[in-house]
């Protein structure tokens, strides 16, 4: 009897799962639009944050105190404040400081997406720069010294000798950071960015089909995360960290 009841409950749950919601129609379109915007946030933020992170790491290692100071202030101000607060600042706070014309232009456009990209990119650039810096520190200092002794200027020695070795060591922590970046694009929902979680919540309030909407979101986050992991491990395999 008990077993029978359980299987009934299970079949009820299964029969009340409306897969058709996800296979076609306006709600599927909403969810896919959300997924597309989430992937855009991920791509733009990653493509800008990684080089920016490398630059900030170099600034943090710079021989000039002033440049180092700026890098330290940037990193600490970014990574010691929650991303949620950064998002609210870039959406509600920062644009208000712009001159009126710029503000009008921005508000006429997709200010939700722009603010989300800026906040997420800067936040993850700070974390990535610290990963890159730890990678640079893992390269024995004699490498840098030898490059300098061969007559390479500071920046070239970094770019041609130290960084290529450092980046290979940095792949595993950068992978974690990229996974965090991907998942944290969902926080942009608080400023009305129409990404995946936002659209899932919208489908939920329109259809009361929470399970379907959030199953779609969960499966999407998981799939993309696993793809990122596979890409990173492929990269590590192709370009292994050299024995130092």
């Amino acid at each position, binding site marked *: 009897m008990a077993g029978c009841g359980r299987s009934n409950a299970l079949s009820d749950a299964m029969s009340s799962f409306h897969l058709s919601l996800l296979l076609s129609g306006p709600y599927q379109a909403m969810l896919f639009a959300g997924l597309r915007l989430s992937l855009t946030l991920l791509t733009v933020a990653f493509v800008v944050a990684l080089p920016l992170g490398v630059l900030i790491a170099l600034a943090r290692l710079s021989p000039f105190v002033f440049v180092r100071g700026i890098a330290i202030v940037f990193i600490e101000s970014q990574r010691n404040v929650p991303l949620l607060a950064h998002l609210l600042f870039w959406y509600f706070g920062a644009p208000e400081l712009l001159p009126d014309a710029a503000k009008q232009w921005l508000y006429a456009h997709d200010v939700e997406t722009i603010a989300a990209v800026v906040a997420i990119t800067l936040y993850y650039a700070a974390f990535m720069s610290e990963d890159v810096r730890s990678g640079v520190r893992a390269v024995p200092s004699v490498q840098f010294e030898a490059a300098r002794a061969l007559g390479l200027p500071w920046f070239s020695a970094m770019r041609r000798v130290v960084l290529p070795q450092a980046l290979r060591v940095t792949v595993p922590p950068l992978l974690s950071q990229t996974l965090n970046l991907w998942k944290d694009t969902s926080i942009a929902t608080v400023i*009305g960015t129409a990404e995946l979680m936002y659209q899932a919540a919208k489908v939920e*309030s329109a259809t009361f089909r929470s399970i379907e909407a959030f199953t779609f979101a969960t499966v999407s986050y998981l799939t993309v995360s696993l793809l990122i992991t596979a890409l990173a491990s492929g990269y590590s395999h192709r370009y292994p960290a050299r024995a130092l």
Partner: protein
Amino acid sequence: MRISQLLKILVAGVIAVGAVAAQADQLADIKAKGEIVFGTLGTDEPNSFIDPQTRDYVGYEIDIAKAVAKKIGVKPVFKQLAVAARIPELQQGHVDVLAASLTHNKERESQIDFALTDFITGSKVLVVKSSGVHSIADLAGKRVLTVKGGTQVPNLLRVVPTAQVITFETTQQAFQALQQGKGVAYVNDESSLYDDVHKLGPKASDYEILPQNLNVEPLAFGIRKGEPALKAVIDGELRELEASGEANRLYDKWYGKDSKLKFGPRTFKFDTDKIEDDKVTG
């Protein structure tokens, strides 16, 4: 065998008692008791809430309830109910009438009866005057701000499917975004909107609340099914309040010009217990 027979007798007994109870006229019972018990929320200003000085129930629905009790010639007794407990408490006979900010909708009609609609509320739209939006239809393609998860988004999209809706975690954030110019309009329920505009102070003149409702929520007293005598006396009193102008006075006192909410003029009358499904009204 014996147990099942006993069960049968018990069930028959329960049905018989139930039938007797259902046959008894509730209005006669109320008169015999000398009191009528209203189930109320007591926490929903201005419909029903507790006056901090006197510790008595006061409010728009409380005043109407007192008028009904006076009409029947009995003492009004108020019993505080939780929102979800309202209909069960009425059905189980713990209260005689619900005066509890109760929305009259089709789903509930199968469970209880409703007196004449005594208040109409709904979602409305606050717009920036300079935006050139003067009616709900003008919102097509425009950026409209509101809160997540409520009925606002489905209600708005049903009326203006092409509006570009941006939603936030709280109504305050959506309202903040409107003030910063991130959209031309902000959707919320009527009483919250009046409250928000009130908080703007002198800047309130830059905004206006569109007169149309996005959806309509009629509020009415709830009565147990199959009590025509009680319903007739309540509806009769509501009609009398309407005819004497007392209904208007109560509206002004709790919602309108004499209240702190300062709603616009009254746009409904105590004249029907019929509801229409989700229609945009003027």
